[in-house]
């Protein structure tokens, strides 16, 4: 392993995924030269805003050795409840207040996960599977089922704020909303936490080996609790952004996306066993999934093949490293 560190390691996902992305773009550009254009890029970036925040959140949990499938329900709960709350109580609050309320609500829901996981020592998959049903069921039973088409003015304004705006040669518009900056912010903050703070080292340590982390004096419980609260807050943010951009709060949105998000993160090299995962890899994984979703038709594959392609990508993206690891283990034995 050490000897080959200077060479390119073809089985690493951080190498593999960009190669697939480049091959995909080359193919797309070959069959449709207008693919390489700013509108394609802004479409890609816009498609990555919500997915990117989700992926960063899911990655953090995977690094710590857990798995969270409830974040989409947290996001749906938050966006719907916040929109309803602001509409009925305080329609005049500005957009940043809506985001603040959303993140606080998401953090509160995340702390429920945290209490169940840390307080009772329950397996993370089971807890979040349960809370996924609970959050969604609670929202649809007690808060509402009808979509809110008139968002509070703050959220509407946020959805309309554009960083980049332009016109295509054919007269159609392209744009990139400021919400993209939120995703960048999430990436920067998470990078800082993971790589510049003791907390981040603790998260990696817990994922590597819970027992070792405990023995070197890491406060495992506090760290785990922080992770689920932070992930909840990120999910809340993603929810508010999703509904602001869609200009509607549909309680049936988002839930069902959780496994695709985890797939994107794993595609980017994070491991389910914990301790491994990079922001670069995660974002590349997201880019690949969004690219396949948006532009499969461009390379001549009918849109109905989208699921098959994503499924195969996941199998190849996780299969190659797994196969390599198994061969290495067999050689060592």
């Amino acid at each position, binding site marked *: 392993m050490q000897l080959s560190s200077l060479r390119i390691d073809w089985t690493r996902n951080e190498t593999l995924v960009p190669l697939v992305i480049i091959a995909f773009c080359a193919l797309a550009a070959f069959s449709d030269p207008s693919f390489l254009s700013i509108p394609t890029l802004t479409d890609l970036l816009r498609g990555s805003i919500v997915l990117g925040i989700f992926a960063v959140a899911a990655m953090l949990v995977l690094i710590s*050795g*857990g*798995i969270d499938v409830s974040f989409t329900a947290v996001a749906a709960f938050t966006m719907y409840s916040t929109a309803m709350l602001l509409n009925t109580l305080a329609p005049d609050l500005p957009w940043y207040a809506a985001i603040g309320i959303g993140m606080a609500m998401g953090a509160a829901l995340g702390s429920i996960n945290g209490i*169940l*996981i840390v307080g*009772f*020592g*329950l*397996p*993370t*998959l*089971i*807890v979040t*599977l*349960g*809370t*996924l*049903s*609970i*959050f*969604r*069921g*609670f929202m*649809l*039973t007690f808060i509402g*089922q009808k979509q809110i088409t008139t968002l509070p003015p703050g959220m509407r304004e946020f959805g309309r704020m554009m960083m980049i705006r332009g016109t295509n040669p054919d007269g159609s518009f392209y744009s990139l909303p400021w919400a993209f900056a939120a995703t960048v912010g999430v990436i920067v903050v998470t990078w800082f936490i993971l790589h510049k703070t003791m907390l981040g080292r603790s998260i990696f340590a817990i994922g590597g080996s*819970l027992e070792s982390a405990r023995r070197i004096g890491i406060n495992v419980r506090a760290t*785990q609790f922080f992770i689920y609260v932070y992930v909840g807050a990120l999910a809340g943010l993603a929810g508010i952004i999703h509904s602001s951009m869609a200009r509607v709060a549909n309680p049936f949105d988002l839930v*069902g996306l959780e*496994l695709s998000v*985890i*797939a994107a993160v*794993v595609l980017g090299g994070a491991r*389910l*066993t914990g301790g491994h995962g990079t922001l670069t890899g995660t974002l590349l994984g997201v880019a690949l999934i969004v690219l396949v979703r948006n532009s499969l038709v461009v390379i001549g594959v*009918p849109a*109905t*093949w*989208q*699921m*098959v*392609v*994503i*499924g*195969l*990508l*996941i*199998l190849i993206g*996780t*299969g190659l490293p*797994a*196969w390599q*690891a*198994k061969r290495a283990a067999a050689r060592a034995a």
Partner: protein
Amino acid sequence: MLEKANDNPLRPAAPSLFARLAASQEARLAVITVLVFALMGALSPERFLSVQNITSMAFQFPEFAILALAMTLTMLTGGIDLSVVGIANLSAIIAATILTQLAGGTQGADALGWYALSVAAALAVGLIAGLFNGLLVAVLGLPAILATLGSGLVFSGFAVVLTGGSAVMGFPEVAAFIGNGRMLGIPVPLVLFGLLAAALAFVLSRTAFGLKVQMLGANPLAARFAAVDVTATLIKVYVGSGVLASIAGLLIMSRANSAKADYGSSYLLLAVLIAVLGGVNPYGGYGRVIGVVLAVLAMQFLSSGLNMLQVSNFSRELIWGVLLIFVMIVNARPDLFQFKRRPPAA
């Protein structure tokens, strides 16, 4: 983080039968199931306890209960099969395509032959899909959760490709039998589920293969040293799961009188939920079919009962989630509920 369920066989036997029963997950679950039934019966006796409701429940639950059996089988090895719904729909669509495209509108004896062929094709799809999963997990060494997440997308994806996303319908009458028929007055889906559950229970508790599955889940390395052929056992487990899923697919197709790529999408998490509720350890090594059957019944009593009480459909999800977490807490910390006294942790 992982609190093992309190089923350590090395623990000295509890003094009384009652204490032993109270200590077993299945007994606690049985109590919960009976309580749910009694509660629902008490809240709306004339409707919940009616023959009509009981039979309609017997028609409803087998399709996802069979998926839960498939989930149980894979979870016992410490794996999971997230592709069961994909396999079920793909199998159903293959069967449905044979019935509509090849068999045309034939009825009578001819139709029976075509139906037999379509069932065989569906089971073959389940077998091949399961074999594919088994190879990914056992030979390539992919984590089961990722292998089946990816393959599930591929199977569902093929179902979409074959149908363009629309429903396939128009089957001969024989196709309705396994979903809607009765044998000696008992709904066929219930009979089917009973047979499959009994068969799985027999295989797991009375055969060498069942023992290998449990050993593999409890400790893969120890199982290997005990001369368990890990690769072959894992492949058989996923093939079994695939075939069970395709049977569920045939049932869903028969009940819906159509096949579609996105049927039963809520069944995936439900199947995981039922298996875990039934006491199957998601990390492998422990699980009993009787627990899963009890969990299925508890879920169905709850959702039918709530339906009778005119509670919103969505509150079921809420209550399922609460039930899952509640049972997990009881299993992890029985001391909180005074079922038995535990010596303080060493």
